[in-house]
């Protein structure tokens, strides 16, 4: 099994296009703060989905997608992380992955084209990551799903929910329409204003069965690992951004008649951040390459990425605040957005510590 680590010209181009689109978001900092708990940057979302096709990169070309691989998506995620975007891109990518991983052709043909086009917002609720299993029941009228899931990414605006529920035959994957009867979507006020979260209360909501048993468990694993990777990639982009703006600031801010970037205390601290950010970039590139090659080691690499990259992001954002001094502690400066994003990136889909525990299990420590 061989892998490729250096980005292709097409991947570089895709990333550059994403950067162009996102530069407007960076220029209008802070984006989308004031619009309410379930709002997001709709203009940016349309551009990412429609102009760039980011939502469809991993969707097969026959179903309206780009038929790409994870390294194709990686550049977009790094840029989204740097710009601290508030869009349901990752949530929608994960919903599509849930359908793809379930192997249900009918569902794929019915819903993937819309998800790929960004015409639908999707999200997922995994057992363990989002509370206990939902309950599934089958009757003459079809399947229904009941129960409560917590901290669902962009759940209040999701048109399509991919959820895991346990019925009499064990675990299974279902699709539920976000607007159908029996679904209550409650936006929760998030500490990170760029990642909306919601509680979903389902009461006999009508659901479409995608797959069950071992296939459902495999699909959950696949979505969980992709989620870990996406958050790690966004974190890496965010960490790089924190380093960049802090280096820039240290090159213009003077104290004691000297640029603060000439003080060893600042230089060495930033050198350590650099080391962690470079490691994060390597981890992301390698994990994406393993995924593209269909290498089973992606399972471990995704957890390595989640563990390393969110911690590198936390450190980069923390040190950015410290080195910016009082300015870095103000609401107006962008750096607290990154700090808060590092926190939500850590909490969603397994913390860094939980992923290390998972690595130990996978490697039989």
């Amino acid at each position, binding site marked *: *099994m*061989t*892998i*490729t*680590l*250096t980005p292709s010209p097409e991947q570089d181009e895709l990333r550059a296009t994403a950067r162009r689109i996102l530069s407007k978001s960076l220029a209008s900092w802070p984006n989308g703060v004031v619009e309410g708990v379930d709002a997001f940057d709709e203009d940016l979302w349309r551009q990412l989905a429609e102009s760039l096709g980011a939502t469809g990169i991993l969707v097969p070309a026959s179903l309206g997608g780009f038929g790409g691989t994870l390294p194709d998506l990686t550049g977009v995620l790094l840029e989204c992380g740097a710009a601290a975007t508030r869009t349901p891109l990752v949530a929608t990518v994960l919903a599509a992955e849930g359908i793809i991983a379930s192997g249900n052709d009918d569902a794929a043909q019915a819903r993937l084209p819309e998800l790929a086009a960004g015409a639908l917002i999707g999200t997922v609720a995994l057992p363990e990551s989002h509370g206990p299993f939902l309950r599934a029941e089958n009757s003459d009228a079809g399947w229904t799903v009941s129960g409560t899931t917590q901290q669902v990414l962009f759940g209040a605006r999701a048109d399509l929910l991919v959820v895991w529920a346990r019925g009499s035959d064990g675990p299974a994957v279902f699709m539920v329409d976000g607007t159908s009867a029996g679904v209550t979507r409650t936006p929760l006020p998030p500490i990170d204003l760029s990642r909306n979260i919601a509680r979903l209360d389902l009461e006999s909501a009508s659901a479409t069965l995608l797959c069950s048993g071992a296939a459902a468990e495999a699909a959950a694993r696949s979505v969980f690992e992709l989620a870990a990777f996406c958050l790690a990639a966004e974190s890496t982009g965010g960490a790089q951004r924190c*380093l960049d703006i802090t*280096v820039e600031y*240290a*090159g213009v801010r003077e104290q004691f008649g*000297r*640029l603060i*970037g*000439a*003080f*060893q205390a*600042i*230089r*060495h601290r*930033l*050198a*350590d951040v*650099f*080391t962690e950010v*470079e*490691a994060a*970039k*390597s*981890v992301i*590139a*390698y994990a994406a*390459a*393993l995924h593209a*090659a269909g*290498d089973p*080691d992606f399972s471990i*690499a995704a957890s*390595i990425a989640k*563990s*390393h990259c969110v911690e590198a992001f936390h450190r980069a954002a923390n040190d950015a605040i410290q080195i910016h001094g009082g300015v870095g502690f103000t609401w107006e400066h962008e750096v607290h957005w990154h700090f808060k994003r590092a926190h939500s990136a850590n909490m969603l889909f397994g913390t860094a*510590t939980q992923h*290390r*525990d998972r*690595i*130990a299990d996978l*490697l039989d*420590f």
Partner: protein
Amino acid sequence: MARLDLGTDLEEFRAELSDWLVASAPPGLADVTDWYRDVTILAGSNRQGRLDAYQSALYREWEAILMNNAMIYPHWPESVGGRDWSTTQTAILSEECFRLGIPRVRRGFSADLVATALLTHGTADQQTYFLPRIIRGEDRYCQGYSEPNSGSDLAAVETKGVVEGNEIVITGQKVWTSEFEGCNMMFLLCATEQDKPKHKRLTFVLLPFEESNNVTIRPIRQMTGGAEFCEDFLDGARAPLFNVIGAFGNGWQVALSTLDTERTGEAVVSYLGFESQFYRLLALAKENGAAREPRLRDRLVQSYIRTQVMRYQGQDTLARISSGIAPAQHCLSAKLLWSEHHAALGNLAMDIVGPDSMVRPPWGAGPDPYDVDEWQDLFLASRGGTIYAGTNEIQRTIIADRALGLPREPRQS
């Protein structure tokens, strides 16, 4: 295990090379020792084992085979005894040797440095004289940079060189010379242009490193108990002017080129050594139950992640070299990564071993009066890793300057 896609030509090269290695290596060579156990320049508790292995008949036989096939330093030009291989091809040689558990034969880590100096600043005559001698093992080099008053501040060296006729006469003291045993040559920096500015007064010289040339060495005993460094007293040691590389007063530039030496193939295999070392500690932690203790378990995974970062970055470097892309900036942080990983792994090893880590192996187990076991040795020796090869503080300064472009610290010239 995933492998880098290097293209059809290099994969064919790999397959042919691997067949050749299997056919040519003396049977049993892989069983002599674990050739990849030492991951840094210090062999520490494995010192005697390493010496014995290098003196074994099978190693000698393998050395002769590689020498006859110009495979000691195959990336050197054919004119000096190499094969004009690319860096990638040599890296593949390192990978395949590792995979087969057989050693690459090289002439100490200082040989790579002096070769860079010769290939970038030496004349054709100097290259064709000195490099083949290294390959044949006739000249074995140690490094003469550090001095008692000049460690991190390398350009401050005080050792003096004076021209007398067609010789340069060198007087001064060098220190922290590693891999000094068996060396007969030293490359060094000395001050020859006293009236010039700090960085323009230095000259790079290849010095016959022998007692008969007024060189006295004194081993330095380290905190590990071993003596793997020495200090060197040069009291009118002489070298022909032919041995001056890159002109008088240009020594700083020559020295800088050696500091940037890419240890060919090393980045590709060094993580493998760190990985196998990690797995040895993990085996111990599983055996004595420490791996089930949540805090130790988490630290084990953190160390494992560090070994994987080194793997990813080593592979990325190889990918870039093979496609002619400039090396990534992470090359600048590699030294911080491995040395701090090593220190952390040493600490972890002591916690995994527990109170028994206070007790050294029984008296008489080895030749040294302060024998330590592998993990005690790692715990102690890793304190040196953050100092030698450019202290980690110097590495951070290099990152701040070169990678981040931060304003320079004020310096006295």
